[in-house]
């Protein structure tokens, strides 16, 4: 230890020691480290930067995108196409293979870009640190790159400087800092070099990295740099906290796993059967591929992406900008919204709404407001008043009541600006000294009076959600006019109280009611007093009117003491308001809600909100008032900062999930008539009714537009009257599989195969006859099988629009894309048979018109049978769980 090292008292940290001891305790001197010492320390503790990880992390991230089921399945489908082309050249399957591979590439790159963006939040945070800093090295002040700072360095800071590292102030006068990036509070905070008894975070002699010097200048000894600073901690959390996997990602992964298992299982079984019954290895392989292709809904995943992208556009029209497609649906799955108060639930505009006398009764507005204005600092401009929001609110109320603000301000002889420590401001108007500020700060200055009545008034106003400002005054003797503020502040007479409110946004109570109807819990997190917070929560609709249960409100201190399990219990018991809480505590609340298996949305706007925004299932940043850091850390940005927009987003998200289920159901139905021809072909001596290219023509061609049209269906009126879906509820349920494969799929298969054999029989085919793939009879038969599937998908399409209704009752022409889908399927069913170029590509041929006429009955048949099922299900009131 250096010879002149001081002796800190037991249990002291750097903020607790005398300023002259701080440098020595950090192995430094008042004149700073020398260059060699600084270089050696930098090698030990690393640079003072908040940089993103270097190296090949992005390569790992990119590789990870290619191992998710989404992408793997698409690559598998592409591989199948290439094998198909090798087996049956000339059917253009390689083109489809390239298309599928392209989609898989796009999917992976899209996910990669999302992950890459997380680093952007880090970049935004790093911008809060200065590039260069004035530092004492060997007694000489010089400018060095901020990244070269090390513990023990003595930095010189001036007004306007950004603070480069956590440092202990050791010298300086009138230093005032703005800690908003760290705490979210933009109030100026005075700093002093003297020792403090407080903790590191609360000490008034500590300067924090990322914050700024608003006034004054001084010297400080660095004690924590880079990620070891408090600001670095936020950066580290913003970088390292991983977002939870969205419910949709889980659902689709589960669906893909199930479908892959079915496909591969069936394929392998029939491959083994083929080999065992004497079929050639090559033929068995082809059939295995056919069965796999038939089972895999190749077009489903691109349709997912398109549907989510279109959903995000609809959300943007409702002021909800979605940065990550998964968040589109995740918003719909939200169980709990943890929301800030100011600006989100409230208008972020203070208004004087109550004027109370010293005894608690109504005060006369004019004199009380005029007195308060004398202790305010406000200026009138073209766009209204400017100044501190509180002072502006007073001026606005006075002007609204007919007061002459300009004249009253002109009469003010002296201003005493708001003092953060004193928590009051003052002014002299005429021969009167007026003080306004927090009651606690004014009470000791009052002459004797009925304090109990005043205390009761303060409590009552706070309980009703008001911010309370006391106003007091006394008449001055002529000799007192030039005295300073401290000398004047005595024997004041309480004039009354101003009750101010940040009014609730008008849309909020309605949105909160919608949340309640939709089974979504709301949690308000605010720095306000518990009484005020509870009152605002009541007005917003988060708490019931008259709900005074103490366990509904938890303070920040209580939250800090609660263990995670205890917090879970408190939330389960109904805690919904966190008062005097800090943004850092949001993470603890999110962790507890995750323990409860809840999907959580969190709002935030500050730098220190970034970790919570990443820890949540859906991080929601404010578009107007939010920092760039918060916007980069979030998945969703509210363009109007309005709570009601979150609820609108939830409605869209729920609709999107419902629509995804509809088109998943729709797409899986065609798997039935795609699979069964292969089973028949391997089991019986009959021609193959559907080729691989024809299956892909359905999955990647004709089904796409109808699927997308289901993705565009409007919200069901019931969508916000149902509880949120269980986090574990998959997309692919047993009911949905049974309905798709076992009911509608079988109907489509039976009808299309009937037409297939009708054409074969009419053309002279006999049981057991083999037909060449270019035989006109075979081409016609396989053509009508394909055509009839397309036509029946029209009936299936309308049926999927409604769970119990006809589907047409939702307006046959209400969804233009659906009309386009129907027309496309009709045109395709015709072209397959009667347009030679299409027939050449797909290996199909024409059939007599009566046969095509019979095929046109297919959609009516499937629609009628499905509607019959719906009627029966509705009557039984127990519809299949999976059916939409």
């Amino acid at each position, binding site marked *: 230890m250096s010879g002149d090292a001081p002796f800190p008292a037991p249990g002291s940290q750097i903020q607790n020691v005398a300023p002259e001891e701080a440098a020595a305790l*950090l192995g430094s001197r008042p004149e700073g480290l020398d260059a060699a010492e600084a270089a050696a320390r930098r090698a030990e503790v690393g640079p003072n930067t908040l940089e993103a990880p270097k190296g090949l992390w992005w390569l790992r991230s990119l590789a990870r995108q290619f191992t998710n089921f989404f992408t793997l399945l698409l690559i598998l489908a592409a591989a199948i196409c290439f094998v198909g082309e090798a087996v049956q050249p000339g059917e253009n399957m390689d083109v489809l293979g390239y298309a599928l591979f392209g989609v898989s590439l796009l999917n992976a790159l899209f996910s990669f870009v999302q992950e890459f963006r997380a680093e952007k939040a880090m970049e935004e945070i790093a911008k809060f640190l200065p590039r260069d800093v004035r530092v004492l090295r060997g007694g000489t002040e010089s400018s060095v790159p901020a990244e070269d700072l090390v513990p023990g360095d003595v930095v010189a800071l001036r007004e306007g400087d950004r603070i480069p590292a956590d440092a202990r102030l050791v010298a300086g006068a009138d230093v005032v800092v703005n800690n908003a990036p760290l705490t979210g509070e933009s109030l100026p905070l005075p700093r002093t070099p003297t020792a403090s008894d407080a903790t590191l975070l609360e000490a008034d002699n500590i300067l924090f990295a990322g914050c700024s010097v608003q006034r004054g200048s001084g010297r400080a000894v660095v004690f924590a740099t880079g990620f070891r600073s408090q600001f670095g*901690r936020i950066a580290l959390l913003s970088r390292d906290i991983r977002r939870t996997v969205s419910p949709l990602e889980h659902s689709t992964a589960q669906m893909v796993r199930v479908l892959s298992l079915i496909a591969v299982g069936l394929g392998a079984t029939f491959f083994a059967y083929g080999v065992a019954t004497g079929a050639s290895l090559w033929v068995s392989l082809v059939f295995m591929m056919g069965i796999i292709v038939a089972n895999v809904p190749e077009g489903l995943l691109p349709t997912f992406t398109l549907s989510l992208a279109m959903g995000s556009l609809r959300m943007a029209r409702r002021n909800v900008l979605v940065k990550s497609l998964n968040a589109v649906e995740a918003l719909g799955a939200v169980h709990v919204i943890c929301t800030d108060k100011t600006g989100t639930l409230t208008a972020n505009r203070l208004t004087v709404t109550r004027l109370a006398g010293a005894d608690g009764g109504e005060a006369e507005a004019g004199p009380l407001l005029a007195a308060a204005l004398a202790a305010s600092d406000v200026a009138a401009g073209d766009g209204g008043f400017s100044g501190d929001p509180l002072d502006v609110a007073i001026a606005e109320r006075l002007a609204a009541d007919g007061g002459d603000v300009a004249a009253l301000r002109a009469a003010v002889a002296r201003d005493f600006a708001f003092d953060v420590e004193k928590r009051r401001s003052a002014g002299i108007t005429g021969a009167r000294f007026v003080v306004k500020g927090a009651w606690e700060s004014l009470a000791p200055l009052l002459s004797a009076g009925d304090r109990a009545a005043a205390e009761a008034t303060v409590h009552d106003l706070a309980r009703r959600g008001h911010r309370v400002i006391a106003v007091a005054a006394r008449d001055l003797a002529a000799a007192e006019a030039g005295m300073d503020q401290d000398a004047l502040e005595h024997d004041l007479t309480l004039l009354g109280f101003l009750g101010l409110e940040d009014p609730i946004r008008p849309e909020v109570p309605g949105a909160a009611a919608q949340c309640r109807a939709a089974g979504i819990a709301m949690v308000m997190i605010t720095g306000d007093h518990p009484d005020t917070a509870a009152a605002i929560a009541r007005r917003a609709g988060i708490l019931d009117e008259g709900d005074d249960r103490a366990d509904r409100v938890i303070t920040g201190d209580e939250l800090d*003491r609660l263990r*995670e*399990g205890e917090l879970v219990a408190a939330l389960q018991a109904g805690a919904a308001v966190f008062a005097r809480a800090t943004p850092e505590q949001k993470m603890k609340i999110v962790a507890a809600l995750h323990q409860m298996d809840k999907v959580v949305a969190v709002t935030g706007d500050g730098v220190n909100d970034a970790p919570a925004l990443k820890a949540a299932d859906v991080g929601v940043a404010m578009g107007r008032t939010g920092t760039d850091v918060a916007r980069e850390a979030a998945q969703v940005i509210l363009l109007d900062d309005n709570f009601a927009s979150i609820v609108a987003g939830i409605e869209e998200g729920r609709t999107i999930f419902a629509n995804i289920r509809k088109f998943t159901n729709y797409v899986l139905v065609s798997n039935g008539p795609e699979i069964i021809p292969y089973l028949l072909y391997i089991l019986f001596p009959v021609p193959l009714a559907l080729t691989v290219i024809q299956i892909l023509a359905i999955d990647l061609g004709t089904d796409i537009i109808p699927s997308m049209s289901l993705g565009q269906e409007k919200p069901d009126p019931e969508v916000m009257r149902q509880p949120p879906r269980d986090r574990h509820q998959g997309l692919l349920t047993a009911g949905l599989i049974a309905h798709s494969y076992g009911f509608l799929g079988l109907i489509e298969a039976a009808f299309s195969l009937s037409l297939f054999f009708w054409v074969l029989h009419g053309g002279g085919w006999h049981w057991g006859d083999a037909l060449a793939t270019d035989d006109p009879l075979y081409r016609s038969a396989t053509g009508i099988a394909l055509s009839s599937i397309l036509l029946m998908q029209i009936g299936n399409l309308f049926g999927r629009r409604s769970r119990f209704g006809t589907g047409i009752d939702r307006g046959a022409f209400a969804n233009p894309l659906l009309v386009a889908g129907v027309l496309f399927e009709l045109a395709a069913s015709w072209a397959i048979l009667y347009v030679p170029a299409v027939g050449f590509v797909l290996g199909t041929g024409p059939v007599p018109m009566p046969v095509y006429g019979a095929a046109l009955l297919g959609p009516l048949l499937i629609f009628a049978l499905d509607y019959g099922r719906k009627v029966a299900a509705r009557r039984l009131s127990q519809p299949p769980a999976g059916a939409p």
Partner: protein
Amino acid sequence: MAVFLAYDGSVNGDWIARYAVRMAAHTPERVLTVLYGEDVGLPAPALADRFEALTAQAAAQGVRAEVEVIPVHGGVFRGLVERLPPGPGTVLVCGLRVRGGRRGYLAGTISAQLLAHGRFHTLALRVVRPGLLGVARRVLAPVGDHPRQPGQGLTCLGLLGADIRRVHVLRVVTLGSVAFRRLDARRAGRLRAAGSERTQAVAAEVAAALRLDPAHVHPLVRVSDDWVKQVVIEAGRLDSDLIYLEAPRASLARLFRFGDPMEELLRDTPCDVALYRGPA
């Protein structure tokens, strides 16, 4: 309980010494024996200054610091081992390699040898927040499944105990990265529940050993595919001053499994780190 400090005369050594002084202050004897290997390299006058300062600082905290220059002809490790009385009544505080780089902070150091030696309690420290002055008020204690934990660790933690206001006992249930990516909330809940009972039991032991109100010792269970990253995240989230954990076992197989993650933790830590190991 006898507290020893392996001191090298460096600035980093001074920062580590603050922890040693705090620990000695919490023993009945209030004595800190400072061991300095002869021929370590500091010029005699500078060394005398540092010893004097250290002794004075210890005295300011009511601790008598006794400096001993020990022979290190067979190496510093052997010199220390020969000097230190074996058994649970001995606590040695030492530092890790100051500059990690490719060699790492722990691998191949004398501290690693001392931790592996297992004849007395060893506490190896990496100090990255010297402003704490050796006073850790919020401690994060990651624990594993081994029944030995936290028993041996309580000795050193107990000596830091009077300064501690909050302890978070963290159990990270680790999964493979593929399994973790497929982990649904229900299974995660089951895994957390499975780890919860033991973590609570450890928390109760820690509270009793530190004579802390049990409400100030919080058990936490997390599921992750990256143990180090989770510990770093929790240390940041909980605003921990010190990560306190058992040193990895020194066998080759263990080093392959745990060696690198430990180096990663020591490199990426947002706060001071203490590795402990008690007598076998």
